[in-house]
């Protein structure tokens, strides 16, 4: 039957196209972004805190169980107002990286973040978060102490806050462990950061049954800042110098500072009710445009 023959040919051609595509630039672009976002010299949360805020006073501990250095936070001064700054910190040298668990928080980290957010709320301080993590730590004890609950609780807290929140994706945005600090009124993203539901390696291991296909997965996942802007998951891309943020930190900080200032000013004039209404609408709309049949029911 000619129909069958044709179907087979179409499938074959389609496969060839995919394979060809897999060797061209857009995909490599995604992988290049992943590599830049994970670059060992890439500036981290504490670098931005130091450069953006003339004063910063760190707060520690979840008041329950422990102090998790994979998340840092504290009062900071930004353009003549006090804010609360919170972010993942991956660590610099080997010792620091181990100390900070490579930026993979345990439940205490998220619970510290929640505590700091509530302190900020009490004083009416805007909150700025910096996201840069491979994800929540996949450890045995993290599960024992409720890793899932810690993230769910942090998300619930961010959704309920009566103060303006701005999240900045500065490097790696790894899944739920990143999102826990990302449910903000505005989400900014450095051009070479990435944000994904799963790491390209993890995705490749599951779907391609081969972690080495991470390059393919990176492209398929649409995890670059341009993709995310298109999906309206982020609100603005912050430009980086050629070669990445580490090439000229001050320039990135200038770009980020201007954007932060603008977004905070826009949010600060809103009433609490309006702020939360917009926040809920923002997130409850996400993905709605990609559903067929919604209008019918």
């Amino acid at each position, binding site marked *: 039957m000619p129909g069958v023959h044709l179907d087979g040919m179409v499938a074959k051609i389609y496969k060839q196209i*995919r394979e060809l595509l897999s060797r061209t630039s857009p995909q490599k672009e995604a992988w290049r972004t992943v590599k830049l976002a994970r670059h060992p010299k890439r500036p981290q949360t504490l670098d931005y805190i130091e450069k953006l805020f003339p004063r910063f006073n760190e707060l520690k501990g979840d008041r329950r169980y422990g102090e998790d250095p994979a998340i840092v936070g504290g009062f900071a001064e930004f353009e003549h107002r006090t804010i609360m700054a919170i972010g993942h910190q991956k660590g610099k040298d080997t010792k620091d990286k181990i100390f900070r668990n490579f930026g993979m928080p345990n439940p205490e980290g998220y619970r510290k973040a929640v505590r700091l957010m509530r302190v900020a709320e009490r004083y009416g301080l805007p909150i700025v978060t910096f996201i840069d993590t491979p994800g*929540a730590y*996949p*450890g*045995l004890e*993290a*599960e*024992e*102490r*409720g*890793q*899932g*609950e810690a*993230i*769910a*609780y942090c*998300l*619930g807290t*961010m*959704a*309920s806050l009566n103060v303006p929140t701005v999240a900045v994706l500065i490097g790696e945005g790894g*899944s*739920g462990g990143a*999102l*826990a600090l*990302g*449910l903000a009124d505005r989400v900014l993203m450095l051009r070479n950061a990435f*944000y*994904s*539901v*799963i790491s390209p390696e993890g*995705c490749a291991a*599951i*779907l*391609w049954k081969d972690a080495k296909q991470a390059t*393919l*997965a990176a492209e*398929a*996942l*649409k*995890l670059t800042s341009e*993709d*995310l802007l298109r*999906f309206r*998951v982020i609100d603005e891309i912050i430009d980086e110098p050629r070669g990445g943020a580490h090439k000229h930190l001050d320039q990135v900080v200038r770009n980020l500072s201007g954007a932060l200032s603008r977004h905070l000013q826009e949010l600060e004039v809103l009433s609490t009710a309006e702020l939360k209404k917009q*926040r*809920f609408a923002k*997130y*409850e709309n*996400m*993905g*709605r445009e*990609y*559903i*067929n*049949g*919604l209008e*019918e*029911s």
Partner: protein
Amino acid sequence: MEQRITVEITKRDKPELKKEEKQDRAPSGVSSNAISCTKCGTPIDLKDLEKNWFCCPQCDFHMPLSARKRIELLVDPGSFSEFGEKWTSTDPLNFFDLKSYQDRINDIRAETGVKEAMICGRATISDHPVVLCFMDFAFMGGSMGCVVGEKFVRAVDIAIEERRPLIVFTTSGGARMQEGILSLMQMAKTTCAVQRLETEKIPYISVLANPTTGGVLASFALQADVILAEPEALICFTGPRVIKQTIGKELPEGFGKAEFCLSHGQLDMIVSRKELRKVLTLYIDLLEGAVQCEYEEPEPAFRGLPKRGGKIIRGIREIKKVAFDAWRSLGRHGS
């Protein structure tokens, strides 16, 4: 009918039990009207299984259930009216791995008859009007994509508009990779909806079935006021395999099971499937009584404002009388 159940059970992917099954239990060669218990291997006649709430009569293992079957077992007969059944994903990422996302969806639908990973609707349980969400593991491992998130949000809208408690049954491998970042955002989306529920004082109960993991666990599943679980259900953010790889050693016996989570303070109660209807009724009863008494300032605290009926009741004595009469009329007082 029996045939359909077999399909549902065998098609279901049980990540952590699969290997053991293969090793421990030889093909039992049972007839098409029987299956062998996933846990103890005993052959069970499908009719007996159905009579026993799809739990093994030998070891009480709770067999995986489709969303449809759960609805049948839980709600007042004929009371379920679904919404959102036609909502489908438009494949926003144009996702393609070894197979395209669109093909995957079509194949699963054809094979299982399940249209999405969550089925939602209004129903009554012991005459209480409720809104229900049931996840279905057969559909891409109960993964949360845009449709699941949207259905949950609509369920919340209905719960608020119609003052109905929300009850959610979860079983999920997490977010749906094929919808990329948008699937991750469904965690934020459902979280915002839960916040609206809280503000509106609508009771919210979740029931975690095997397995509930990843993004579903770390958002709406664990944000409920009351969290129940089925016996032995795997409940963890990261799956045991990944943890084992990370820490490089064996996990303790029972790690991540419902019993483990209960003793680690994550759950309110483990409820056997047979008892679930009774337990849910009691919670709804007690919580519904609570929401009927709204609390406003600067007026006296416990004046009643039952929004559903539309009739506004004032004064605590009157509230009590109304509530009492309601309970009595349903024959459920003092049970």
